[in-house]
């Protein structure tokens, strides 16, 4: 029987407690006054008449007791602008008041006088240093991955094929907007409740900006209505703002962004531009790949450097190529900072590669599936970073499963015939993508994090899991309970997952990078086994036991000996070696592998694209909870459909012009096809029960599969997403209408 989602019943009853559900009798509401220009200097702030200003708590950069920054990888992002403005949503003043409506009126009455400076809004302008707006050269990070000698292959290659591909910004659009409640005073410190993925990131930011001791800051996650990366780094901003207001007011402060503010001001997926130059033999063997990958980080560094790393490492895909050079740049522009979004750079670079592979296939006159087959990575092969694959990927098997399930060959033939008829208004297409996704932090990230998770016994004979990994809808609570249940031979109902609270749980790292099940889940498994060992050694548990033996042993131990807790700290498997200077070695402990197939209809009159059917085949190690896992894939694919054809962030001078749900369009139940999910299992030795990470994978493959299908349907090579009707009209205008690439 399927194990039910742990917190599912409360959610279905509307009883789950989210941040906006918090009420205190003396609660104030907080709001942010932002800049109106993209770049410039602040010359003054005035508070226009119209509200009783003496009723307000007002915070500016002068009220920050610690360091004026949102501490992340770098300390470049101010908590509140102090003189300089670097993007149009830069926070300048914070206000708090008991009445939300009066507060909103006041926000509009704060006038920030500025002197404007020239700004930069595109990757190309930033790379060309039209203005230097960040550091010495606008570069948050540059990197180079080299394998073999790509310069040696151009002269002898049968064909050299080039292409340029781009992807747009994308909003995570968790349905619960960002929000925090803070309660602070000078004596006891600050407690923050909120919607978040990474309690210890928020903790670190608060300690830095408030100048408090670590033990004076407590961060508690409330039920979180989706994250997808969008609640990785931004919650630190709101938490710090709410805490500053609360500190000054001496009362609790709630800051909940409305949708318009959340869309305008919070992080998005990095827009990207990728150039490919590929040397191939006539038979379709990849001889050399040169990739130039650039992403737009917005005004501050946030986590752009790591997004760039993941994107660049995935840029060569699941293919064997002896000579590879990948250059990556993360550049600054005067838009609000971009940040994490499920896939974290990989959906961008994989879109480019998988469109490029179809382009190569068309140029060589080889079927796209055959081109892939001739180049897939196998056990023992070396990836672009020189990682020797210890595991045994079976991309051929996944390809066959996915294409068969989709009826790919028959449909491709039938669609080509139907599309060739000039009378056909709705052209049909089918296309696929092949890809892999590294789970866990890149390179030595996990080693440096050295995460800890724990389990402890209760007097009632139950087990509690202690970890800072957050349940954000993905099913972390359920999977942790299931891992403990499996390790200890007890029902998962006897396992409780403690709500993340930095004063209670150990730091098991952030809830990102598809690491929760694979990395933290393994720690939970080890901690559980450690606890069992203590019981065995104490003589209270035999080598084999029934669930009730276990419960008995547990409660006797607690009664007779005292508290029983077992911690487990991450130890990197000894074979993993990574050289961060040269981007060489084992970029990830393991990869998930996948082939996705999309079937689309393109209306040649309205230019609307619809995804009619979707097959997602993947190998993700052992699947722990099939229903939750399939839910991850279906949700991720749907976000990928949005990324491909619906979701466009219209950037006007650095500001999102369409920051409402009426004009930022995400897929509805009517726009989403049935998604057929296929799992192939190949247990991973270092994951709990053999599981690998899964969360980000589905975002990587949907968009290229869809655009390969659209290109097949229209006969036009389309290299850019989101491919909305307006863009499709432009792309097709001038494209040869006479049919198929093959």
């Amino acid at each position: 029987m399927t194990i039910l989602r742990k917190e599912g019943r409360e959610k279905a009853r509307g009883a789950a407690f989210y941040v906006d559900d918090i009420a205190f009798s003396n609660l104030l509401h907080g709001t942010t006054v932002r800049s109106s220009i993209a770049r410039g200097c602040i010359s003054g702030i005035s508070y226009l008449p119209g509200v009783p200003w003496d009723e307000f708590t007002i915070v500016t950069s002068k009220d920050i007791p610690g360091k004026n920054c949102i501490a992340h990888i770098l300390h470049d992002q101010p908590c509140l602008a102090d003189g300089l403005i670097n993007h149009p949503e830069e926070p300048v003043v914070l206000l708090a008041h008991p009445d939300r409506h009066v507060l909103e009126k006041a926000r509009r009455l704060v006038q920030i006088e500025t002197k404007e400076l020239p700004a930069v809004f595109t990757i190309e302008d930033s790379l060309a240093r039209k203005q230097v707006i960040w550091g010495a050269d606008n570069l948050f990070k540059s990197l180079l991955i080299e394998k073999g000698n790509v310069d040696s292959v151009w002269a002898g290659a049968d064909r050299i094929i080039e292409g340029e591909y781009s992807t747009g910004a994308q909003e995570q659009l968790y349905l619960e907007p960002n929000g925090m409640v803070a309660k602070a005073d000078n004596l006891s410190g600050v407690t923050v409740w909120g919607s978040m993925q990474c309690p210890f990131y928020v903790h670190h930011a608060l300690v830095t900006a408030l100048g408090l001791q670590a033990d004076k800051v407590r961060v508690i996650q409330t039920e979180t209505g989706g994250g997808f990366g969008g609640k990785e780094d931004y919650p630190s901003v709101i938490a710090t703002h709410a805490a500053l207001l609360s500190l000054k007011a001496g009362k609790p402060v709630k800051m909940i962004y409305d949708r318009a503010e959340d869309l305008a001001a919070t992080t998005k997926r990095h827009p990207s531009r990728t150039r490919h130059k590929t040397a191939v033999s006539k038979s379709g063997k990849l001889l050399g790949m040169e990739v130039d990958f650039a992403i737009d980080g917005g005004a501050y560094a946030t986590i752009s450097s790591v997004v760039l790393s993941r994107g660049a490492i995935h840029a060569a895909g699941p293919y064997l190529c002896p000579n590879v050079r990948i250059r990556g740049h993360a550049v600054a522009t005067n838009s609000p900072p971009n940040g994490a979004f499920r896939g974290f750079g990989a959906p961008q670079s994989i879109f480019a590669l998988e469109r490029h592979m179809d382009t190569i296939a068309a140029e060589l006159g080889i079927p796209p599936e055959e081109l892939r087959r001739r180049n897939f990575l196998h056990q023992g092969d070396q990836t672009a970073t020189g990682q020797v694959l210890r595991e045994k990927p079976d991309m051929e098997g996944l390809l066959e499963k996915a294409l068969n399930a989709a009826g790919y060959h028959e449909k491709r033939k039938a669609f080509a015939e139907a599309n060739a008829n000039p009378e056909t208004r709705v052209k049909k297409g089918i296309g696929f993508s092949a890809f892999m996704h590294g789970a866990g932090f890149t390179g030595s990230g996990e080693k440096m994090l050295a995460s800890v998770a724990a389990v402890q016994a209760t007097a009632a004979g139950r087990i509690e899991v202690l970890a800072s990994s957050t349940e954000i809808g993905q099913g972390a609570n359920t999977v942790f309970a299931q891992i403990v249940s499996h390790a200890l031979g007890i029902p998962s109902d006897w396992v409780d997952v403690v709500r993340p609270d930095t004063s209670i749980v150990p730091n098991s790292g952030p809830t990102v990078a598809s690491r929760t099940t694979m990395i933290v889940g393994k720690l939970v498994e080890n901690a559980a086994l450690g606890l069992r060992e203590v019981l065995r050694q104490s003589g209270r548990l035999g080598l084999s036991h029934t669930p009730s033996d276990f419960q008995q042993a547990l409660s006797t131990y607690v009664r007779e000996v005292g508290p029983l807790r077992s911690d487990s700290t991450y130890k990197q498997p000894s074979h993993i070696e990574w050289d961060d200077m040269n981007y060489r070695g084992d970029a990830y402990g393991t990869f998930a592998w996948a082939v996705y197939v999309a079937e689309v209809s393109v209306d040649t009159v309205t230019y609307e694209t619809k995804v009619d059917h979707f097959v997602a085949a993947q190998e993700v190690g052992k699947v722990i909870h099939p229903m939750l896992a399939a839910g991850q894939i279906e949700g991720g694919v749907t976000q990928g459909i949005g990324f491909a054809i619906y979701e466009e962030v219209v950037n006007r001078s650095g500001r999102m012009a369409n920051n409402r749900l009426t004009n930022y369009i995400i897929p509805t139940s009517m726009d989403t096809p049935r998604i057929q999910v296929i799992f192939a299992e190949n247990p991973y030795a270092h994951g709990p029960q053999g599981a690998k990470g899964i969360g980000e994978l589905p975002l990587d493959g949907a968009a290229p599969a869809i655009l390969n299908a659209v290109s097949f349907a229209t006969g036009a090579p389309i290299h850019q997403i989101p491919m909305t009707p307006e863009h499709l009209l432009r792309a097709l205008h001038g494209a040869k209408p006479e049919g198929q690439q093959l």
Partner: protein
Amino acid sequence: MSAPKKISLHCTVNGEPRELNAYPMARLLDVLREDLRLTGTKEGCGEGECGACAVILNGELVNSCLVPAIQVQGAEILTIEGAANHPIAAQVQEAFLRHGGVQCGICSPGVILAAANLLSHDKAPSEADIRESLAGNLCRCTGYSKIVDSVAYAASDLKGTRS
């Protein structure tokens, strides 16, 4: 300009008669969440686009962020908190729990009420009917497949209990 005055309202919420004092143009969403502390109704957009705030008002599904308080004078309102006592909605809740219709849960109150509303009018909806009736409820987590399945299971469970 004279400040608007609160008016007294009476209505039935989840079967219980309630007396309220609210500004006539206050959003029903805020009246439910703040005055009645029924926080199961959620706000996802505040402009009628997402359905997270959906409730059933006099037998019809409405987005409570768009309904002014004055409109609920004498009305009967069903929110997610009352769903467990509503034969159809309760079955839908159970199906969502068993078939993966709930992930982060923020859309669930609205989606469950929308589905209950559909099943009150149509006992055996097709997949297309289900998708159509949920088109006003955005979900960013599930990709809708498991939501659609949950509604279909709820329909067949109800048929079992009805026949």
